[in-house]
């Protein structure tokens, strides 16, 4: 069972108390943007087989949104971090690089 540590309340939460929120760090576009920009925000997805950065919500716990780095091919969790981050933290990137030397890095 997938287990993620909530970075706010510290609980090791299994997936039954979490709600998935899909891709993290999307660049948001609103009124006035081009159709291409809006499509890139609303629909186009990285959907990688490997390292992925995602939004999760500790729905049946503290209720907070947070972010997680996870391998979609092995379900290994690299770490979680607060939702108030515009990019993954450097130490987490370094940790993933160490475990996945072939990984092309965060884009």
């Amino acid at each position, binding site marked *: 069972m*997938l287990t993620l540590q909530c970075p706010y309340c510290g609980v090791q939460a299994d997936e039954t108390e979490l709600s998935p929120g899909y891709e993290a760090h999307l660049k948001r576009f609103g009124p006035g943007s081009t159709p291409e920009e809006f499509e890139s925000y609303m629909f186009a*997805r990285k959907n990688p087989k490997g390292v992925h950065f995602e939004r999760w919500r500790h729905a049946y716990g503290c209720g907070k949104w947070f972010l997680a780095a996870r391998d979609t091919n092995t379900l290994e969790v690299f770490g979680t971090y607060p939702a108030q981050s515009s990019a993954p933290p450097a130490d987490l990137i370094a940790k993933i690089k160490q475990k996945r030397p072939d990984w092309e890095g965060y884009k």
Partner: protein
Amino acid sequence: MRRYSVFAIAREALRYHSGWERAWASPTPKASYDAIIIGAGGHGLATAYYLGKNHGITNVAVIEKGWLGGGNTGRNTTIIRSNYLQDPSAAIYEKARSLYETMSQDLNYNVMFSPRGVIMLAQTHHEVRGYLRTAHANALQGVETQFINAAKVKELVPIINIDGPRYPVLGGLWQPRGGTARHDAVAWGYARACSDMGMDIIQQCEVKGVRSEGGKVVGVETTKGYIGTKKLGIVVAGHSGQVADMAGFRLPVEAVALQALVSEPIKPCMDVVVMANTVHGYMSQSDKGEMVIGGGTDGFNNYTQRGSFHHIEETLRALVETFPMISRLKMLRQWGGIVDMTGDRSPLISKTPLGNCFINCGWGTGGFKAIPGSGWAMAELMAKGEPGPLAAAFSLDRFKEGRFIDESVAAGVAH
């Protein structure tokens, strides 16, 4: 190709079954083809078949990373229905359903199509209204469905509990011409027919890159070397994102795991397919007697072909509530498949930003029922370079233009 018939069985019975041929050849790839299809699942093989049959293009290769029909074609719950709400969906799924009716004769291969009927239970008043609306829409689309009351549901499915504690059955959307088919046989039948037309089905051959010149595709790099092609069809379901990445574009697709399971075989007890979308589970009985069970997808990106245990628990809880007699059945097997979910839960049969490269994906949790219609539409798109009437609405542009085919609301959860 020697045809399968009662005379063939008699002939072979008299000579120790020594004359059966291989159903399809396993050739080494040629240097180039008129068209290459990536993915030898149902949709890919059907595309190749209709390229040959409807459009006379037979210099075709179907290349497959694993083995034929080893992906979602061999992992689904084999349900065939076409009771969709939106016109483009009803058209393509009804085309597929009608092609299933004659598929065994067409392919000379028994796909065991069993038009036993499909019921989608209405267990809330909202669902009753929704299915009444769908029944009216289907009447206009020429799809034969009807809304039936709870007594009729009980008559069709004696083992059902219509007075359930949480969600009593209030009625159902009944499609008498829906049913099931043997999923492997669909892939095998198409493969045999394609091979007979001279097409190459190349298994154990993974695509590693897509080569293009001047914005047009010219070939694919594979584990068996470079293969040139004039046209490329990407029909790889769960891994569409990876192949699209090689071809240099992004898709409105997320890959998630969908699970299914079967019970130990029991005597015949249910001769229709029942889908309970509110409590979230669906069940039919296979010819071997196993109860074939499906439920919901996991809600996160996943390529592991196995799913979360708590989803099985939810599905079985729902079905035990609906069919109390299954409460002591043992489950034999459980498995997962990687399904490609689009933003509006409808498929893509489309041109792509790369010239002469076409994609067919996004069937999500409901691809098996669409195989012949999907192949028919994709073959037309690849042969002519422009979509025909079946495929036109399923273009990649619809996400940019806001022309969604909103079946995620219309069809509830189960596909």
